[in-house]
């Protein structure tokens, strides 16, 4: 029983980590800056999950609120205030 939960825990952990790298790569790849911002928010959210897994709940709360919501909002405002697409 214990081994099963441990396995599930480790599998979740691994998937979160893969998700972080994948969303970070998406940030590089997307030419549409709004999409890149959403990828950045996903990355932040997954990192906040990772913080929770690494037993830092206080940091996880802060990262979820700041990284996933506020930073995204700021980036979207900045994109509205300038150009939406990356040039090349």
């Amino acid at each position: 029983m214990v081994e099963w939960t441990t396995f599930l825990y480790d599998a979740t952990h691994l998937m979160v980590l893969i998700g972080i790298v994948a969303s970070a790569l998406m940030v590089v790849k997307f030419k549409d800056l709004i999409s890149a911002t959403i990828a950045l928010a996903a990355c932040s959210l997954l990192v906040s999950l990772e913080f929770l897994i690494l037993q830092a709940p206080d940091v996880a709360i802060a990262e979820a609120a700041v990284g996933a919501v506020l930073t995204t909002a700021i980036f979207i405002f900045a994109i509205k205030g300038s150009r939406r697409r990356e040039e090349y």
Partner: protein
Amino acid sequence: MLSNIPYLVVVALMVIGLYIILFKRNLIKLAMGITLLETGVNLFLITLAYRHGEVLHAPVFTSMILRNDTTFSLPTPHALTLTSIVIGVATTALLLTFFMQLYRKFKVSTTDDLRRLRG
């Protein structure tokens, strides 16, 4: 074994962040690169805090159901990371405000055009 994998993710995040800063010319992409770099450093600190088997320092949180009792997390790097997040959002906001102003004044959106001050 699994506890070392986050370090690889830290390296990946920092490399991706630096790649964006070095090779992407869009200013907002650049800010995203800085954010990714910062996320990588934050993750590094939190991973560092996650320890096995040492009892010298005070743990803040343990999930006893999932892990054995010797796994815990150091409080100091948490405080460092929190501070770093605060500073990160402040610098990001300031930087993006500068970029918006630059776009309004010169219609600049890439670093190629941002070359009035040189030499």
